């Protein structure tokens, strides 16, 4: 909303200079977003909140200024003009539904001379960015800006009948609006029609045919109030916007409509001559007064400060409300119909606080009763994030909305349908992702493109699964590793090509830190590796297929990925920390180095060793592996380190050696190992 300093002066004696006024308006809730000097005037651009249609006028802002800065508001009183309610020149009027149009009035002015507007009028409109058309149209716009009431003038001779009907458009009815575009209408849209066809889209935009132009002699001046919801839906449907509908949507006052019609007619008669003729109106512009009782103690309860009741009364009066003091200091406040936003006592509290000044309300510290605090999911999530970043990974955040094509390209399959978005702006917002992996793959590709050769990232976010009656949201952890991890060691630079064991290592570290008791990695038939938590599948690891890599332009690189359902992980975390006493007696360690066929699963081997060595064998782990010159093709060299220990006393070699030998023979017999 734009206003000018001089126009404002028509309504109030301004004592504050423009820049100070801008500051004061901003601090009262009318945020001045720009202030420009133009000739001898200043243009204020103000952001008007949607609850204040009364601020969409010079007069409304002047009223506010009088409350903020002092000074008396000079309202315009309409001159009594002699329009006749009957007679040949009054146009028959029909409103098909009062809910659509609570008030409609049409004044006929005959013998007008349509021509250019006087300079002062043109200038004022131009300062607000409104193009001058002709004196009649300019006057309707002028009143719109000044009083906030949208008006429309029709060329009466182009209205068939002549008659006016406010009705819903018929299916497939058409109109060419003043912007020259044809609009297809339907019964959801309210129109002003003559005997045969729509002549305007009610409250939104006039039609070109009955437009007032040079040569127009007789006009019909419309001033009305339309249903805000109906107009809002209509303009959304048609994709139209206008100063008029902007105001109708927010709410136009009934009494204002009646008054503006008089003031505009007066201006037309003095600038374009003509004679007042017929007048017809339907609906009442009188409304019942709304009374709100305000207890000054309530104001204090909400705001916390001590504003004197006298000051409250004074502020409300200045805003155009009528205040009476009743028993026990209760203020009885009468609300005028241009303040539809004031309904509850708390609305008046805001008015008082706003004008009194938010900055004058003291600060205090509330007594917060802390809630009983259990370890929340968020705390665990934070812990996981910290662990992973400690393991060298970088957290990313990617969009929850993705394009369907990405899902297909990356070949990430999920067991449910995807959730589709009804109104995406682009294909990148087509669906809610059922997996984080496509986004991470894209993120890896992006970073490789930036010549980064080692990408190690993770994300924790929700995935969305389509269920029959609702959408299921599941928190998920996803990790992606790619490229060559180069790092310095004592021996110099090591270049480590990322593979799935790196990913496993990260997950193992994470699960161990979270005290997950029972986790396993089991290969599946489809090449993926299941992550089992407490015997249940809670996620998987995979190496991205060549085809998928090609589709996202990743060349000569492997990408390994993991996704873990966090709800399941949360259920397996060991929160209780319990101390296990340290071993009192030394252990005996025996390493077995051997050569084994490559297709034998190491996991099976270790399980067999553990079973055989129990209970003296406390752990068996892979201490080394080797493939190379000394090992025949298809074989791998392994060293398993076996630790034997007793809690009660020191073990002797005599006890361990025979047991260890049986372990070795088991390996030879069952797995065909060759000791080295």
């Amino acid at each position, binding site marked *: 909303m734009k206003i000018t300093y001089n126009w404002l002066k028509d309504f109030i004696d301004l004592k504050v200079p423009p820049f100070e006024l801008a500051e004061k308006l901003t601090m009262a809730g009318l945020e001045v977003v720009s202030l420009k000097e133009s000739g001898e005037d200043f243009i204020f651009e103000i952001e008007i909140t949607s609850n204040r249609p009364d601020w969409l006028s010079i007069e409304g802002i002047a009223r506010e200024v009088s409350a903020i800065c002092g000074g008396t508001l000079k309202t315009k009183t309409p001159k009594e003009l002699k329009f006749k309610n009957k007679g040949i020149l009054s146009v028959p009027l029909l409103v098909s539904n009062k809910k659509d149009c609570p008030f409609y009035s049409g004044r006929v002015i005959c013998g007008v001379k349509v021509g250019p507007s006087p300079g002062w009028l043109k200038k004022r409109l131009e300062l607000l960015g409104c193009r001058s058309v002709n004196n009649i149209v300019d006057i309707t716009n002028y009143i719109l800006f000044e009083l906030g009431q949208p008006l429309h003038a029709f060329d009466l001779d182009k209205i068939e009948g002549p008659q006016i009907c406010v009705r819903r458009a018929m299916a497939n009815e058409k109109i060419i609006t003043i912007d020259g575009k044809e609009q297809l209408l339907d019964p959801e849209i309210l129109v002003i029609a003559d005997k045969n066809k729509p002549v305007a889209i009610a409250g939104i935009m006039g039609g070109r045919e009955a437009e007032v132009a040079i040569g127009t002699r007789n006009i019909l001046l419309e001033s009305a109030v339309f249903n805000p919801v109906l107009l809002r839906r209509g303009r959304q449907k048609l994709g139209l916007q206008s100063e008029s509908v902007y105001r109708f949507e927010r709410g136009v006052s009934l009494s204002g409509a009646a008054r503006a019609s008089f003031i505009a007619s007066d201006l037309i008669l003095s600038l374009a001559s003509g004679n007042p003729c017929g007048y017809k109106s339907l609906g009442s512009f009188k409304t019942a007064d709304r009374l709100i009782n305000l207890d000054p103690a309530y104001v204090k309860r909400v705001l916390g400060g001590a504003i004197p009741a006298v000051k409250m009364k004074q502020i409300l009066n200045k805003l155009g409300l009528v205040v009476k003091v009743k028993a026990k200091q209760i203020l009885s406040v009468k609300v005028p119909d241009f303040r539809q936003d004031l309904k*509850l006592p708390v609305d008046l509290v805001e008015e008082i606080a706003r004008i009194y000044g938010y900055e004058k309300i003291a*600060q205090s510290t509330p007594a917060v009763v802390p809630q009983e605090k259990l370890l929340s999911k968020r705390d665990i999530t934070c812990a996981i994030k910290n662990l992973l*970043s*400690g393991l060298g990974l970088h957290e990313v955040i990617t969009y929850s909305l993705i394009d369907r094509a990405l899902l297909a390209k990356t070949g990430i399959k999920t067991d449910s349908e995807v959730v589709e978005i009804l109104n995406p702006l682009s294909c990148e917002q087509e669906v809610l992702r059922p997996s984080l992996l496509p986004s991470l793959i894209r993120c890896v590709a992006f970073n490789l493109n930036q010549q980064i050769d080692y990408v190690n990232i993770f994300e924790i976010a929700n995935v969305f699964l389509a269920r029959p009656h609702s959408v299921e949201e599941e928190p998920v952890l996803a990790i992606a590793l790619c490229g060559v991890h180069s790092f310095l060691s004592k021996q110099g630079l090591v270049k480590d090509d990322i593979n799935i064991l790196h990913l496993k290592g990260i997950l193992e570290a994470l699960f161990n830190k979270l005290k997950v008791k029972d986790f396993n990695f089991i290969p599946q038939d489809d090449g993926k590796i299941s992550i089992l938590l407490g015997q249940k599948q809670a996620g998987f690891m995979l190496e991205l297929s060549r085809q998928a890599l090609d589709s996202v332009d990743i060349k000569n690189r492997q990408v390994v990925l993991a996704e873990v359902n966090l709800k399941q992980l949360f259920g397996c975390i060991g929160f209780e920390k319990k101390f296990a006493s340290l071993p009192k007696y030394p252990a005996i360690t025996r390493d077995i180095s051997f050569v084994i066929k490559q297709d034998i699963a190491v996991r099976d081997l270790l399980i067999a060793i553990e079973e055989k060595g129990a209970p003296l064998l406390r752990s068996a782990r892979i201490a080394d592996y080797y493939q190379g010159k000394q090992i025949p093709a298809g074989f791998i060299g392994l060293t398993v380190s076996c630790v034997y220990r007793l809690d009660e006393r020191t073990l002797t070699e005599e006890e361990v050696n025979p047991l260890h030998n049986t372990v070795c023979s088991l390996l030879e017999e069952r797995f065909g190992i060759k000791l080295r």
Partner: protein
Amino acid sequence: MDINLIQEKIENELAGVISPQALEEVRVKYLGRKGLIAELTGSIPMLPIDKRGGFGKEVNALKIKVLNLIEEKERSLKNQDSAAKKNNIDIGMPGIAQGPGSLHPITHIIDEICTIFNRMGFSVLEGPEVETEYNNFTGLNIPLDHPSRDAFDTFYLKKYAKSLLRSHTSPVQVRAMKTAKPPLAIIVPGRVYRPDAVDASHLFMFHQIEGILVDRNIKFSDLKGTLEMFTKNVFGKDIKMRFRPHFFPFTEPSAEVDISCIICCGKGCSVCGRKGWLEILGAGMIHPNVFKHVGYDAKKYTGFAFGMGIERIAMLKYGINDIRLFFENDLRFLKQF
């Protein structure tokens, strides 16, 4: 035998020692069980009685002297040793360790804000991203067909009637108040969605954090005090804050909160649009209609609510000028946090 001569000999010998092994040899030679000093001590009884006392003292003095000399030599050898090692490894070479990972800047800001409010006694609560139209709008006193909804353009879901992606974190207020009685002090971080065209300051997904406090006697002045504490914690104690009246359907009175520009300290620059102030959050006293929807007694309780965009705070705090950087996830960007 002349004790002084022996001492001189030992001193000379020690001066030539350059390794711990050689030092050990010298030690054994003189101080060992069969060493020279033991030999000298053993020879005492063979001396005439009147000479025994004097010679004994001399031998003892020599022993102490030699012990000290060896100890001193040992120390100097150790020092030489580490000096030698120093020369072996150039400390200017890179250290050997795994490179550290990083948390996303948005995570850092959320953690920081949650921590500040945790200390004041607020708990963190999270809610679903797929919401009902009721929780996102109606329950928050936002009429479905009113221009006040224009600020909340919303993604709707196909196939699920009245389901949408929350356009702000406020629906969690409704959920929280429906499930718990006052006093209620919660802080709600999370993702939100709005169909906005993407540019340097707009995205269709971003993060918000929301806080509410409901109890008997919660006042607008408490809101001011709480947010003052918050802004000073995040932006430093010299920051100024101002409350500007505004309109939100779910609060009354409502305010927008500005802080003095952290770039120009209020003088006016390009970041603050020459205003000297930066808008950082919206706040207000919870509207009685919201209480009505969740079944709270507005006569008994009052409360405040506030909400802000995390990206906005992160951009101001870290000096990031393009919001798209947050979700591009360039490692060179992420590693800075």
